[in-house]
């Protein structure tokens, strides 16, 4: 007979705790098909949260885990975890059950439970399994021994922006992810996340042109996030020297990288992480390329650059400085000695003005000037300096000249301010430093006096028709010549790559001297030689060079490992909000401007090369980070970091809840216990006093799998308490809360006191009780043992209130010792409250099942003596805590009883007899 047919051989068990597992195993072993529905992602229930069980002090997980595994592998049991029963129709013998399988957003057929995704997730949420003491990620495994061993994504709502930043970024950095981590103050994690796609976070956090900010959706409602500024927060707030090294499996391949600029470093980093042996050849005396010699120190301090290059070296990359390929070593030799070559030589050649007198001493080329200044070479700087050009290099030259002592610095540009290619903010900053701007002006002749530059003849320009670049062409105005008295001129017209050395090998070059590559892979015309960065694109931005280096590294790895060299899948274009989305976000989020980064005042900063941008404080960083719309939601922010990391490609963001219809003959309800909300019992200070915790929290603190790895530590100061008080019946046996006795607290408090002693011998425990309910085999002996061997004292009192000692955060308990009538106070280092327990079944589930609950919310039994495990609906049975307060052995016994009743029901309904009452 096929399982589930008419439900005659199938049984549904609700609740995957110890009772549900036991009932399932019993029935499965009798030959029934069992569907075990559990609402959390794993079976195990409350018992899985416990450290030990009384009265034997056995490890709870050691007893439970084999049963969990057996339930998972039993051919007759089908686990439906992360599922809930929605509706039950029909009648005993032929129930129709509708189960909702909640979307886990992870394809469990593919998920291997490796946990790589969890490491990368930037969203940190209170861990319900650890009673919210510990944290988990938005993608998580319910607990380490979870069955099934699968991950789920806690995705509660849609992300509120399009994460256009990721799409716009040339290396597709997980911007919402690291911003979320900064908002949470998780700087180390944030740095690691940025470094996943960008080996130079602190550098790029200072010099990036931030295309992400242009597309940031927050910019559509007020101002875009300060993404670039935020990128340096992790390295400002955390010492990146502490970044640990990953385990790398070495290959036997060797790669030569020519040039140690951003392209070369990025390629070397990625190849080293893949295990290849990488050597960088750098012509200059120090590594870093344009980062070292093109960007002035006041924008990018050398120490920062050195730190990040240092980490790449720690990955095993060897950097040989002062070696110019083509002169000190031939390219051909490199090709022979190495398995692949990456060329990232940048664009370090200056351009000539083509103006008379250009060779007079005192006229310098911009990029050479910056290089000399950066390397500390002697540069003769006059008092009056003119800088020719309108790009970022011109600004850098002008500000550097200022710092080297020039009194008057003028930028001479042939078009107007609006055509300047330089960043507007940079221009403004230069003006603050006293740099003058002369527009619509071009040099026509340099004048010498005593073989030294003495003046610059200029001509006025006017704007004409647009040229090839789309900008209006400047046209000289006839007869407008005039002379500027200058003693130094820096011509910052642009840079070109110096690629002649590649010609020997036949690498194909463009007319401009740039290297021609396959844009998809970075491969040049010569096999095994790849290229990227400014040497390919001509002068561009740091992050583009990094992207070029990474792309080539990916191809080189494919080439070296014998895979076909293929392009990466194209990234989608950045998206804007729709009108509706924009209106909605505007309504939901009050306008909040960007948090401005503090700067060194202009007067001070021009005195030397100190860094101008001072970085955010931790608080400012968190404030700016909390503006990110992606981080505004609870749960998964869909940054897709898990998707990137998941090797079996199991992440499915589009997954929907699924409905499953089952046909079963009988149902067992074993949904277990919940914990009563004790926040109204304010006298014990739970939630207000840090060192007052609940018993379940205590269990998680002593459990090896818990948030402290089994170290029992206080919340206030992380100290190990040596003097612990336990207060019983918190919410139980209390007419204002739960009138019934929760049944297990006397024993679990005693057990916990013993555990505290076992963790730290000598620990003193005091249990405040009203009656010791040690009702069970050997329970009295257990309590006697606690007194005799474990330093446990029992005091008969229900304390009236708890105060705090402000000096050490110790809770102070006020109570009347009822046996003597003395009022006392007792200072403990930790107080553990025996929180009342409640049946875990609500009106909704009860209604779906069509069963009645009693006034306390437990499953109602029609006849306590004759049908103790029945519910008010024939064919549905109950066991465990949802039935009545009880301990684990009782729950297991009851589970077997309920399984027996269900089996009896099945056999009787098959033969058509009524199982109720007489047999």
């Amino acid at each position, binding site marked *: 007979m096929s399982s589930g047919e008419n439900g005659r051989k199938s049984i549904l068990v609700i609740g995957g705790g110890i009772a549900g597992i036991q009932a399932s195993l019993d029935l499965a072993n009798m030959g029934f098909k069992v569907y075990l529905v559990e609402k959390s992602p794993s079976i195990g229930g409350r018992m899985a949260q416990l450290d030990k069980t009384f009265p034997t002090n056995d490890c709870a997980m050691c007893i439970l885990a084999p049963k969990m595994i057996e339930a998972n592998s039993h051919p007759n049991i089908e686990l439906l975890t992360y599922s809930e029963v929605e509706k039950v129709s029909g009648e005993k013998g032929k129930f129709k059950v509708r189960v909702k399988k909640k979307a886990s957003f992870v394809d469990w057929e593919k998920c291997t439970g490796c946990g790589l995704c969890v490491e990368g997730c930037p969203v940190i949420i209170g861990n319900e399994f650890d009673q919210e003491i510990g944290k988990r990620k938005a993608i998580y495994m319910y607990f380490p021994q979870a069955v099934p061993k699968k991950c789920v994504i806690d995705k509660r709502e849609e992300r509120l922006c399009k994460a256009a930043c990721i799409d716009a970024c040339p290396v597709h950095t997980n911007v919402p992810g690291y911003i979320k981590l900064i908002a949470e103050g998780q700087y180390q994690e944030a740095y690691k996340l940025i470094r996943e796609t960008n080996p130079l976070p602190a550098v790029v956090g200072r010099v990036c042109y931030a295309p992400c900010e242009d597309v940031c959706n927050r910019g559509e409602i007020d101002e875009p996030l300060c993404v670039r500024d935020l990128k340096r927060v992790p390295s400002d707030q955390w010492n990146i020297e502490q970044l640990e090294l990953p385990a790398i499996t070495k290959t036997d391949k060797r790669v030569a990288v020519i040039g140690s600029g951003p392209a070369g470093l990025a390629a070397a980093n990625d190849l080293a992480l893949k295990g290849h042996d990488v050597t960088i050849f750098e012509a200059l005396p120090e590594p870093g390329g344009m980062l070292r010699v093109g960007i002035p120190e006041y924008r990018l301090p050398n120490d920062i650059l050195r730190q990040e290059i240092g980490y790449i070296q720690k990955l095993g990359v060897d950097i040989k400085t002062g070696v110019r390929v083509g002169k000190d070593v031939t390219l051909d030799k490199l090709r022979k000695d190495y398995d692949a070559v990456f060329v990232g030589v940048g664009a370090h050649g200056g351009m000539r003005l083509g103006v008379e007198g250009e060779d007079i001493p005192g006229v310098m080329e911009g990029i050479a000037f910056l290089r000399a200044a950066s390397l500390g070479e002697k540069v003769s700087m006059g008092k009056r300096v003119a800088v020719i050009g309108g790009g970022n290099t011109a600004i850098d030259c002008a500000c550097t000249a200022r710092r080297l002592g020039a009194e008057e610095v003028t930028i001479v540009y042939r078009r107007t301010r609006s055509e300047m290619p330089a960043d507007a903010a940079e221009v403004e900053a230069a003006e603050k430093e006293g740099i003058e701007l002369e527009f619509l002006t071009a040099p026509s002749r340099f004048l010498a006096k005593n073989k030294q530059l003495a003046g610059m003849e200029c001509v006025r320009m006017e704007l004409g028709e647009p040229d090839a670049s789309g900008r209006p062409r400047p046209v000289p105005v006839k007869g407008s010549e005039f002379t500027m008295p200058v003693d130094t001129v820096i011509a910052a017209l642009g840079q070109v790559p110096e690629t002649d050395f590649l010609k020997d090998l036949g690498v194909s070059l463009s007319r401009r001297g740039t290297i021609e590559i396959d844009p998809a892979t970075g491969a040049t015309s010569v096999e095994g030689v790849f290229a990227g960065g400014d040497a390919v694109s001509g002068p561009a931005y740091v992050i583009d060079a990094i992207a070029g280096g990474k792309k080539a590294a990916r191809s080189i790895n494919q080439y070296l490992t014998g895979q076909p060299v293929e392009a990466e899948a194209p990234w989608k274009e950045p998206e804007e909000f729709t009108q509706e989305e924009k209106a909605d976000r505007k309504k939901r989020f009050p306008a909040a401007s960007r948090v401005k980064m503090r700067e060194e005042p202009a007067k001070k900063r021009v005195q030397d090369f100190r860094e101008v941008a001072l970085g955010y404080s931790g608080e400012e960083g968190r404030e700016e980070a909390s503006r990110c719309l992606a981080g505004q939601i609870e749960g998964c922010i869909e940054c897709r970091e898990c998707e990137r990391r998941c090797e079996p490609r199991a992440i499915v963001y589009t997954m929907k809840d699924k409905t499953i219809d089952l046909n079963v003959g009988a149902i067992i309800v074993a949904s277990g216990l919940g914990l009563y909300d004790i926040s109204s019992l304010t006298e014990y200070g739970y939630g207000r006093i840090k060192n007052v915790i609940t018993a379940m929290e205590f269990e998680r603190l002593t459990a090896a799998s818990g948030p402290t790895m089994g170290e029992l530590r206080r919340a206030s100061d992380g100290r190990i308490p040596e003097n612990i008080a336990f207060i019983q019946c918190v919410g139980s046996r209390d007419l204002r809360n739960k009138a019934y006795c929760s049944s297990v607290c006397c024993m679990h408090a005693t057990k916990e006191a013993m555990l505290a002693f076992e963790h730290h011998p000598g620990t003193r425990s005091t249990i405040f009780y009203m009656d010791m309910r040690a009702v069970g085999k050997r329970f009295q002996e257990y309590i006697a043992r606690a007194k005799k061997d474990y330093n446990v004292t029992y005091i008969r009192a229900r304390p*009236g209130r708890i105060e705090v000692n402000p000096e050490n955060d110790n809770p102070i308990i006020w109570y*009347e010792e009822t046996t003597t009538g003395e009022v006392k106070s007792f200072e403990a280092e930790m107080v553990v409250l025996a929180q009342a327990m409640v049946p875990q079944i609500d009106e909704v589930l009860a209604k779906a099942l069509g069963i009645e609950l009693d006034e306390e919310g437990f499953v109602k039994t029609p006849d306590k003596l004759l049908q103790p495990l029945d519910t008010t609906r024939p064919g549905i049975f109950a066991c465990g805590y949802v039935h009545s307060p009880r301990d684990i052995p009782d729950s297991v016994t009851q589970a077997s009883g309920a399984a027996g009743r269900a089996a009896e029901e099945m056999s009787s309904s098959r033969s058509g007899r009524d199982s109720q009452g007489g047999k």
Partner: protein
Amino acid sequence: MEVLSPYKEATEVILEAGGEPLKLCYQCGLCTGTCPWNMVRSFLVRRIMHEAQLGAVDFGSEDVWTCVTCKACVDRCPRGVEIIDVMRALRRAVASLGIGVVPDALRISAKNIAGVGNPLGEPPERRNDWAKDLKVKDFAKGTEVLYFPCCVPSYDPGVKNVARSVAAIFDRLKIDYGLIGTEAKCCGEAIRKAGYEETFQSLAQNNIDLFTSNGVKTVVVSSPHCYHTFKAEYPELGGEFEVLHIAQYLASLIDKGKLKLSKELNKKVVYSDPCYLGRHNHIYDEPREILKAIPGLELLEFPDARENGLCCGGGGGRIWMDTPKGERFSDIRVEQAAEMGADIIAVACPYCVLNYTDSVLSMGKAETMQVKDIAELVAEAM
């Protein structure tokens, strides 16, 4: 066999007052542990409940008069025992049935209340003298609001300003209110808790008749004790009025935008919850909303605020009895407030005003700390 209690009649009264819940008491001692007395001296509430269960109460004991009826224990008792009712019954047994001794101070106040309708023993015709110069009209049929200030602000020169502040606020807002004639008497809340049931019945009947015959619909009170008895106890005797504590009334005016507070008060103010406003009647938020509406005011909170608030020591008739130095709750509060750096202790009860003012004076803190009713602060901030 030895007879434990010779006062069968008295013990029956007590058992009846405790009702079923008294039988449920499982002697856990939470009441003793929670009782503020045990911060300063021993007061075993649990033992009194036990004695009451057994009908073996020592009526001669000082403990009969100790409870301040602050309700901290009642709110937490896991068995729902109405501990205050039991305490009241003990006192009733002494005061009405004549077993045991009533403390002198209480006996005099009780005599005054019974005689002239106020605990201070002042002439009834001078009840409204506090407002003599303010031209407050007498309540007449159709007047919207009756303001009932409580005997303490009516007669005590030190607390008068509370009533005068209310009058000033009402005048400024042009509220149609009046004072009832000098036939009004003490509300009777505290004397009832002190065991004088007959006195209470007569006071209540007097006031109910007076209000009813004058057509009172809404009565605004300054004292949470008046509030409590008008609201919870008068209806059983036929007195049905809308009762509002001044804090509720002012908070609703602020909420509606009718009362605007514009003058800055750059002070640190800590609010102490009166037991009869807080625990007895669950009014915690309104006084705080009023204080927050005062510009410049920095509102501080005691660590044991709201539900856990410490009593001033004046409830249950204790306001008329002497509490030796070292045992005064109000001293503890003033010390707490001083440690927090508060400039003002704000209250919303005339008994609290009396007790805290006494403590501030006797502890030599008058230079640095003031005690103010929220009505006084509001009047100053308008």
